[in-house]
């Protein structure tokens, strides 16, 4: 079974083809970062306008690259939420009508399920059950995964998502948009010993997160230190490093705790922040210390992409699930509402 996947939930247009026997056979992503950079954040109307220009050309491209004639596609999967509603509508309308026109089934995929299952595209793939940490600009969520569609949210951020905290702190440090990866780069030459930031909510039981205080801590630290700094550029790097250490450490502590509490052995990391190198190092060490294993998608599939949608859609279509002609994407959509296979 061969499935075309379409992702348009935010500021990336992603299209891919997943084949049950051959795995991923084509994928293409167009990032809108340049469009939104001057506004310092994603402008929903501009995002939607760009998706309607880019999606069909990308579909054309992946069909050609994989030498897939239209009649070889057995199903179409599109992101049905959560995300920006106007952006979601473009992919949903296009994906659903294309499936109708081709006479094949279609399925609306949950964006976070796409992320969560993305490591299954890789070799070796994690076996069920596992605990997943979904960590991106919009989400910080620990989820117990018994199987596809069998999700229990163990804890999530009470305020900013980890990626959001990265971006906001980057802004404080005058780094260009989108700041997260820039902050990580700056942190590489920072001194990990100079400042120590708090590890929010690690001193009490539970699997919730809170990252908004760290950004304020960074702002206060920057103001105090810059006033007396001999080398402001080094001070910024040191603050970036201290901030990154605090986020990474907090995530590692909570993930380790989640594995212990659930009795699972495998941890899956997904979402944009899971591409962070320091996070991977720290997480691998922390989980291995307890005899557990860590799994990640390749860096390209940590950020939004069509491959994860094609792949998650393939699982559900193969199990016989599909959608009527009506398409109804949702800006909000709790993952626990998803049906099991």
């Amino acid at each position: 079974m061969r499935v075309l996947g379409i992702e348009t939930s935010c500021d990336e247009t992603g299209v891919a083809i997943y084949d049950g026997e051959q795995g991923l056979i084509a994928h293409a992503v167009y990032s809108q970062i340049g469009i939104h950079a001057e506004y310092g954040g994603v402008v929903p109307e501009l995002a939607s306008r760009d998706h309607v220009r880019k999606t069909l050309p990308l579909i054309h491209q992946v069909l050609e690259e994989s030498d897939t004639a239209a009649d070889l596609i057995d199903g179409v999967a599109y992101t049905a939420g959560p995300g920006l509603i106007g952006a979601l509508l473009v992919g949903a309308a296009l994906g659903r009508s294309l499936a109708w026109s081709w006479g094949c089934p279609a399925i609306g995929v949950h964006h976070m399920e796409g992320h969560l299952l993305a490591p299954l595209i890789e070799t070796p793939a994690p076996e069920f059950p596992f605990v997943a940490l979904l960590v991106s600009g919009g989400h910080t969520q620990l989820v117990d995964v018994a199987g596809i569609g069998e999700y229990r949210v163990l804890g999530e951020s009470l305020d900013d998502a980890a990626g959001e905290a990265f971006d906001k702190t980057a802004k404080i440090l005058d780094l260009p948009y989108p700041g997260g990866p820039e902050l990580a780069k700056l942190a590489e030459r920072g001194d990990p010993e100079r400042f120590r930031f708090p590890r929010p909510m690690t001193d009490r039981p539970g699997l919730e997160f809170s990252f908004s205080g760290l950004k304020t801590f960074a702002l206060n630290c920057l103001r105090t230190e810059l006033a007396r700094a001999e080398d402001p550029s080094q001070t910024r790097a040191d603050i970036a490093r201290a901030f990154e250490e605090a986020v990474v450490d907090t995530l590692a502590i909570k993930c380790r705790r989640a594995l212990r509490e659930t009795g699972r052995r495998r941890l899956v990391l997904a979402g944009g922040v899971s591409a962070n190198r320091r996070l991977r190092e720290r997480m691998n060490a922390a989980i291995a210390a307890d005899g557990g294993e860590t799994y990640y998608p390749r860096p390209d599939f940590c950020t939004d992409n069509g491959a994860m949608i094609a792949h998650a859609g393939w699982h559900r279509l193969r199990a016989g699930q599909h959608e009527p002609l009506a398409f109804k994407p949702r800006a909000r959509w709790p993952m626990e509402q998803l049906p099991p296979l």
Partner: protein
Amino acid sequence: MKLLAIDTSSETCSAALLLDERLEQRLEHAPRRHGELILPMMQDLLAEAGLAVTDLDAMAFGCGPGSFTGVRIATAVIQGAAFGAEIPVVPVSTLAAMAQGQFRRTGDRRLLVALDARMEEVYWGCFEIDGQDLAAYCCEERVCPPDSVSSPQGCGWHGVGPGWSAYRSLLTGRLGEALSGMSPEAVCEARDIAILAAADYAEGRHVPADRAMPVYLRDKVTRAA
């Protein structure tokens, strides 16, 4: 000629199937429900006529102006359907279709179409019904404040569309004696898109699916930070 047309640019959702002289339409007032209704309407029309989507010569859609999201739904639906069926697309102005619809209902031949564009502006188009009974542009479509719309030559012009209720006094003040009446309740309908699209298609004015794009008229949608 077999042509399927849709419109989702306003709170009304409609689809129409043109088979030579015969025209069937499905229409519903359905705010924020276009995604639920439009493909079932299209499927229903084809099934009733015993046609497959690949039997069509072309597809047409209301490309705007109108609700940004609404216009994009129609665009994306048509992109997907026409690409899948490998048939061409005819984009049709929603303003021209509303002029055509007014002519169909009342026989008025000089039409000034105004949609409420919010932000104290209207989407504006002037049309005259030509010798083939088709709406033809007298001026370029634009978005502008209601007191600076282009006012056409002569008299006997009929106002069409909800812009005429939103900015009634400003528009009537601007048009003065040129205005003979108005129909602010008029909505864009797929059947009128189908009529205009059939003429365009016959003259070779159509595009491949990936060049079917919305016409927003308003291109400045942000202020730089």
